[in-house]
């Protein structure tokens, strides 16, 4: 009998892979908080609450071809696109071998050319025009990839969102923009950020499709991105997808979140996709206790290994600070 994921054309193994990737992201994130609180790494910024959207979306993309311009919470995206736990731990520890930046940037500033993950900065939303530029290049070169870009809902108020997506709209470029609406921009709740009834309505300004989906449901996000990708590849232009979930942690390790009520957070935790999607997979007899235990074991050992490796790895030499300003 068809269940939700098979209707979408996803095999049991596919959804297990999605779940495992979500779980890996979550567990890496949790480990980073522990490392931060024990003084071993200076900074964490979390994916918690957004893994379903990130991994669901990524699995709808062509992970051999498509380009991604992720934002700082997108652990789930970069893991799906080939970054490893070790890579991420090297970044968290700011070690020389970190493929994102060689320890130059804070964690969460992803980038890895071999996996077509564009390098990102801290000023929010600058990646939107970049993703559009990649899509433009693809169109000029008649390639069949799409360009996928993410950002927070607060960040959708930046001028670069408007300018970038308008450019993409005029040229019907294959850009899929996913706004991860976690309802807060640091302390500022969505109703003080944005007056429109939702984020996806902004797509209309750019002649694009706009869809709002449950960001806690990886299958719903998968479907939205898959459809968007199909349109993009068919020359029908871009899509703005709003994936609604909730930021389960404080903004970052530098933030307390006294500005919101504990009850609100507790309520949101009930929708945590790690739990709800896990339950779905169990109900559908896709995830057995045995598989779950194995997964957890594997993930723990991957993370342990990555952590140990990263902790031991050397920092860049002081004078390495002088390298790579220009081509050498």
């Amino acid at each position: 009998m068809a269940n939700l994921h098979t209707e979408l054309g996803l095999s049991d193994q596919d959804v297990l892979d999605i779940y495992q990737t979500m779980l890996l992201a979550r567990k890496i994130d949790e480990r980073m908080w522990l490392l931060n609180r024990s003084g071993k790494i200076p900074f964490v910024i979390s994916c918690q609450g957004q893994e379903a959207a990130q991994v669901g979306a990524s699995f709808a993309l062509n992970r051999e071809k498509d380009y991604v311009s992720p934002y700082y919470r997108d652990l789930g995206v970069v893991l799906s696109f080939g970054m490893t736990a070790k890579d991420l731990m090297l970044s968290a520890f700011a070690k020389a071998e970190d493929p994102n930046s060689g320890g130059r940037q804070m964690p969460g500033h992803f980038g890895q050319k071999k996996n077509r993950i564009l390098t990102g900065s801290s000023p929010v939303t600058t990646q939107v025009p970049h993703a559009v530029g990649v899509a433009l290049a693809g169109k000029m070169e008649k390639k069949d990839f799409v360009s996928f870009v993410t950002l927070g809902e607060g960040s959708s108020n930046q001028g670069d969102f408007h300018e970038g997506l308008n450019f993409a709209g005029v040229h019907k470029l294959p850009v899929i923009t996913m706004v991860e609406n976690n309802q807060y921009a640091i302390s500022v709740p969505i109703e003080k950020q944005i007056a429109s009834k939702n984020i996806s309505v902004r797509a209309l300004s750019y002649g694009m499709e706009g869809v709002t989906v449950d960001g806690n449901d990886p299958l719903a996000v998968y479907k939205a991105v898959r459809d968007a990708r199909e349109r993009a590849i068919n020359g029908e232009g871009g899509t703005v997808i709003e994936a609604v979930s909730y930021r389960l942690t404080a903004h970052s390790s530098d933030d307390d979140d006294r500005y919101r009520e504990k009850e609100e957070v507790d309520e949101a935790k009930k929708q945590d996709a790690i739990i709800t999607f896990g339950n779905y997979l169990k109900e559908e007899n896709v995830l057995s206790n045995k598989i779950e235990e194995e997964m957890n074991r594997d993930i723990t050992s991957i993370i342990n290994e990555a952590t140990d490796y990263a902790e031991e790895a050397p920092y860049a030499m002081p004078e390495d600070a002088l390298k790579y300003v220009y081509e050498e």
Partner: protein
Amino acid sequence: MPVMSYIQAVTTALKEEMLRDEKVFILGEDVGKKGGVFRATEGLYNEFGEYRVLDTPLSESAIAGVGIGAAMYGMRPVAEMQFADFIMPAVNQIISEAAKTRYRSNNDWNVPITIRAPYGGGVHGALYHSQSVEAVFANQPGLKIVMPSSPYDVKGLLKAAIRDNDPVLFFEHKRAYRLLKEEVPNEDYVLPIGKADVKREGSDITVITYGLCVHFALQTAEKLANEGIETHILDLRTVYPLDKEGIIEAASKTGKVLLITEDNKEGSIIGEVGAIIAENCLFDLDAPVMRLAGPDVPAMPFAPTMEKFFMVNPDKCEKAMRELAEF
């Protein structure tokens, strides 16, 4: 007199000015309910209400631009950029609008806005939470740029900025926020924008600097004084437009000048200081002008090894000051 940290001086100045003049209001990201990511506006939301301490949408060009519009109308906005690094989206509003409004309207309109932003490194902030950005703006007539080095100066200069009838960029060193403490009078006082300040008298070498580096220079000067080297320290305080007379006087006084900035060396504001000296003090100099600055790399890295390599610190100051003294 109470002892205050640098950031407490910020909060105090804001609060006193808001009490004094109801046209003064604050706008920025997370300045309201949260009280700012550094807590510079702590308590003000509760005291003055939502509209005088306004949490804005995440959009710096609007923060500056809406502030400019309100200022044209006659309000006295104090806009916060969460980090100086994030002022870049607002450059057009600041340079094309705020700086040029009085001039372009032939004195009909003016923009009494203050734009505060925490800058500077040494806080594990990496490339985008550590920059000194003053050089981007320190070539725009119509703007004033204030960069205080101590809690006392913060209070007096921030009040002056808010009362100024022209746009002022007010950069606060984020590492100084909790590091620097001193006695700050309870009374209302303002300090003059546009005037450099002699922070230490000395006759052997002159150090001209601003911001956190003043602190490093003072520390080092004490140390060198034990060995009989007397350092004259000029704190620029306003880095644009510069206090040319103050600079000429300080440089001429000892004839040996070290310029220090935490910014990248090439194109930093100490270049302009050096040029002023080259134009005006040639025959008073006993040594080439020396500069100590960050290396010319985009911004300081996250890894502690490379961050330390980048940052000016007391050791680097000492080395440079000694070298100059011995010249």
